[in-house]
């Protein structure tokens, strides 16, 4: 068997699964965006780009885009900062490190529902611990603070993703590189910039890309925050609004159009990302 054949054979199961279970639904979604279709009922009517025009003219769409951007950019930045910081700390040797690592990953491991419930309880304006400790009755689920609450929960829940990826990579950096740098007279900060960061480059590239995609399209966390009370209007990000268009306004066509627009935005952003950070990464 030639090398190429072996290669294809190894890749085939993955391809088949992806084609059937991912590509088909996506293709259907794109297809339906050109129709006016009630989400419940089978009738549909071809409208060409009508849905897209309506979406772009919809004031709510732009508002949710803005909210979505605020949400994703802030959470990504914070997740990166805290995740990397945590990884650097937990890479050092100290007694109880194993336990500390395990604990640091906990937030990522609990289902979103549990994370949201715990924080909603902590941030409860009447009985929550946070307000008690702060001494001021902040309405965490109200219009002024709910975005902040959402960001807190999302950062708490997902920073361990960054932590895990970076830590695993840190483990494989040969200590000789650091020794060499120290011999050359580099202090901690310079070692970080000149040895650690370059080694982390490929991992960070993937991590930032994935976290960006996932935070921009994140649905579960804001949705569960809204259930059972939460000022929805102020965290109505793009995925939430898209879901509502489909499942509450019952306009599957328009909802799909919004999803396609989100997709195109991500593609554009990814293209820019690859262009600036490419270096050795192949697409």
């Amino acid at each position, binding site marked *: 068997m030639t090398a190429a054949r072996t290669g294809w054979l190894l890749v085939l199961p993955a391809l088949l699964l992806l084609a059937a279970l991912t590509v088909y639904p996506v293709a259907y*979604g794109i297809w339906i965006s050109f129709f006016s279709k009630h989400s419940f009922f089978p009738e549909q009517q071809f409208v060409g780009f009508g849905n897209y025009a309506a979406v772009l003219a919809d004031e709510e769409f732009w508002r949710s885009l803005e909210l979505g951007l605020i949400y994703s950019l802030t959470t990504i930045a914070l997740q990166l900062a805290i995740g990397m910081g945590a990884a650097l700390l937990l890479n050092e040797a100290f007694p109880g490190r194993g336990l500390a690592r395990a604990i640091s990953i906990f937030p990522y491991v609990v289902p979103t529902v549990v994370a949201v419930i715990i924080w909603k309880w902590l941030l409860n304006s009447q009985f929550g611990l946070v307000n008690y400790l702060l001494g001021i009755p902040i309405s965490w689920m109200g219009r002024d603070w709910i975005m902040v609450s959402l960001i807190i929960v999302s950062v708490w829940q997902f920073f361990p993703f960054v932590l895990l990826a970076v830590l695993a990579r840190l483990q*494989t950096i040969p200590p000789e590189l650091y020794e060499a740098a120290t011999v050359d007279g580099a202090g901690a900060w310079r070692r970080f910039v000149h040895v650690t960061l370059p080694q982390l480059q490929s991992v960070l590239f993937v991590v930032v890309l994935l976290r960006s995609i996932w935070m921009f399209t994140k649905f579960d966390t804001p949705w569960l925050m809204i259930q059972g009370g939460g000022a929805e209007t102020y965290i109505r990000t793009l995925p939430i609004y898209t879901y509502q268009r489909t499942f509450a306004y019952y306009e599957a066509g328009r909802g799909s159009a919004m999803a396609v627009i989100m997709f195109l935005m991500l593609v554009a952003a990814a293209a820019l990302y690859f262009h600036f950070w490419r270096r050795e990464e192949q697409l």
Partner: protein
Amino acid sequence: MKRGILFSGVSVLLFFTAFPFAWMIATAFKRSHEIFTTPPTLLPESLTLENVARLFEQTRFAVYLGNSVLVATCTVLLTLAIATPAAYALTRFRFRGREAISATVLFTYMFAPIMVIIPFYVLMRTLELTNTRAGLVLAYTAFCLPFALWLLRTFFQSIPLDLEEAALVDGASRPRAVLYVVLPLALPGVVATGTFTFILAWNDYIFARVLLAADELKTLPVGIADLYNASVVDWGMIMSAGMLVLLPVLAVFAFIQKYLVAGWGSGGIKG
């Protein structure tokens, strides 16, 4: 790193991470009316197991937990089985379409999962896989696969080709070279990928909600969300559910801790 920074950094980190859990556990052991008093008490005045008891007596929590463990484990096994050889092939073999595959993989992620739900449901229905855990495993595998491929590819890329070449020159067949040289080095990556996959499957709410109907097949996120939305919010019971959710996780981490230990990478890469 200076000891002072290390100590305070780790303390803050652990507090930020663990305190909400501590609060959850404290609430799980409080009696109902103590939960709603102000000022809130940090430690329960009287420890009670009644919340946990209610959780097991009145709900099917044990069943949900079992389902989640089963589905997540199967997803990990299936995903790794499919993704590891594929990622290896993507970095080691030259064949046409290699680059295109990577691009497609990434693009499929950019389409928001929530929009995929209805066609996905229709597809599962046609395959008669709705309301089965097998269907859910397939769904999660499909969802985790792109990411697993991507991550594993990064790890395989960081392992220099020279190592395998050396083994092949020494007379080993390719499978042996892979098994004894490459995989051990990629192990942290495989473990990390397996962990992420487990968690993605463990955490998912929306696929489980739409694809499963029967109560006895529900996974934890759906089961707990239903408890939360039930007309009587039993905070003590919900918090004990959250607490118990941590237990299998602790078990998993005790196991994988060893594999994230330093020292794997530095061994054979001397030039």
